[in-house]
């Protein structure tokens, strides 16, 4: 990966507050999907709604959930699975927006193996060690689902948590047998000579399942309903613009705050952006699958936690 002048500075592009705008904080893990918020902010969509948006980067789902619950963040964006797990453990959360949903094409995620590896299909993963970013992650769930669907026994797979970049390295050096990564690491891995055996997210989940969502706390949902509505509208507007303009996405990905290298940005699969409201039924299916694979202890009624701003 080539150097990328000025990619430092994401969260710190001086957050000057214009008078009359309401401060509004979004918590996010650092990921390519963040270009939506950066774009909307840059275009002034949030200002139009009277919001002064601040983007804060955290490293994990729990940090984002905790931030929302204690009010540090007004909203957080994270993968649907950790949000559902938190709700099942009693966290007072509301889900109100889908930012990414499973698209009819492949490229959301990928299972990468070494070029000479004997693994050619999901089924071959049984008995192998697979690296991915976190153990309570969608990647693990969908990989297990995909293996099951292919007739394998998912309980025979050993998952280890590694940052995406390190997991590519671990596959290349033979320390693990496979890595489940997301864009732009799929491209990076392929460039490093790894082989992609499939996209388990697309294979395992129904098309249109919201796998990235925006959450807020029950309290904030009540107290700041108007602001949340404004945030939602501004974000959707940005997504619609971006979906219509893939080149814009590629160029945005190279900006300082996102930091994908030029090479990766040009070759990567585009992220699945969505402005549609959360499809409750499909999310319920995801929750049920999570329960089936032990991420959630008991049946969770998703509809109680999804709101429409």
């Amino acid at each position, binding site marked *: *990966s080539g*150097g*990328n*002048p*000025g*990619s*430092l*500075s*994401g*969260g*710190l*592009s*001086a957050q000057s507050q214009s008078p009359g705008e309401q401060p509004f904080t979004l*918590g996010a*893990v*650092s*990921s*390519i999907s963040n270009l939506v918020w950066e774009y909307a902010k840059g275009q002034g969509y949030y200002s139009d709604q009277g919001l002064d948006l601040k983007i*804060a*980067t*955290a*490293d*994990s789902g*729990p*940090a984002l959930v*905790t*931030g929302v*619950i*204690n*009010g*540090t*963040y007004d909203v957080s964006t994270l993968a649907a699975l950790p949000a559902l797990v938190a709700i099942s453990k009693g966290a007072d959360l509301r889900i109100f927006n889908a930012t990414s949903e499973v698209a009819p094409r492949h490229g959301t995620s990928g299972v990468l193996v070494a070029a000479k590896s004997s693994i050619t299909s999901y089924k071959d993963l049984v008995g192998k060690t697979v690296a991915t970013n976190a153990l309570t992650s969608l990647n693990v769930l969908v990989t297990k689902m995909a293996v099951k669907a292919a007739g394998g026994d998912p309980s025979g797979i050993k998952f280890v948590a590694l*940052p*995406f*970049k*390190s997991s*590519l*390295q671990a596959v*290349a050096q033979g320390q693990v047998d496979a890595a489940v990564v997301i864009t*732009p*690491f799929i491209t*990076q891995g392929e460039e*490093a000579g790894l082989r992609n055996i499939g996209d388990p997210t697309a294979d395992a989940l129904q098309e249109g399942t919201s796998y990235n969502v925006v959450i807020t706390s029950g309290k904030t949902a009540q107290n700041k309903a108007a602001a949340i509505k404004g945030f939602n509208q501004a974000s959707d507007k940005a997504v619609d613009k971006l979906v219509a303009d893939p080149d814009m996405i590629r160029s945005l990905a190279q900006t300082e705050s*996102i*930091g*994908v*290298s030029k090479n*990766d940005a040009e070759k990567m699969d585009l992220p699945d952006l969505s402005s549609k409201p959360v499809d409750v039924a499909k999310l319920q299916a995801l929750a049920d699958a999570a329960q089936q694979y032990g991420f959630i202890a008991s049946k969770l009624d998703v509809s109680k936690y999804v709101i429409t701003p």
Partner: protein
Amino acid sequence: MSTDTATFAATALRKSREPLWRRRRVQFAAAVVIDLILVYVVWEVLSTTGVLPQRFFPDANSVIHRLGQLLALPAFWAVLGQTLQSWGLGLIIAGVSGTVFGILLGSSDRAYRFFRVIIEVLRPIPPIVILPLALLLLGVTLQMKLLLIVQGTFWVVLLQAVYGVRSVDAITLDTAQVYGISKVRRFLTIQLPGSLPLIVTGIRIAAIFALIVSIVAELVGGAPGLGNEILKAMSTGDNETMYALILLTGVLGVIITAVFSGLERIVLFWHPSHREVSL
């Protein structure tokens, strides 16, 4: 110790007339330069021979180049400032309270025993593990960082101070007792200076710990600062930036140590390790 400080100032002035090579600062700078060259050469050799695969571990030049770019960004200095702010505040809180409590506990066996179990229970709790609780209670704030930094460093200083007090020569303490020197004065003029050699080591260790913990708090907890930038670079796979920043934290460590060693020479001028041996 104000009079003493004046004496040191005088000594320092005198020293400046020494030949260049005898000055410690010059020696230290020379060592830094030599070490940098050494590291650079080893790094380059490892990169070019492929021991460090370039795809996953950038070569020295590109990291240095990247560091140069970063240093030119005003935003970078703002980030650095945030890290240093929490570092400094946390270190002061932990250093002062750790020293005071440490000397008190070190000089009273009974008090030490009373708190012993609690100390041993709280001490090994990793800042990373209490992070979610700190986040919950304090949010992503300076206070959250401070809490973690103090948890990570207070115990170090405390323990060194306890050992420090115990290593104070019994006869000096006897002297204080015979001459009816009050408890407060005994603390300030005997126990504190007597235990300084160990406390100073403790604070030097703590200074670096504090830096590490503030970076970890930013990295894992999402507080703004250098650690947060490392996290971003890591999650987008931007290795140059990541290693440039890690390289920088090491440099910060060297600077911090240089400053603290200077202070130490002033405070511990009387200690055998710092006496001017006039050979």
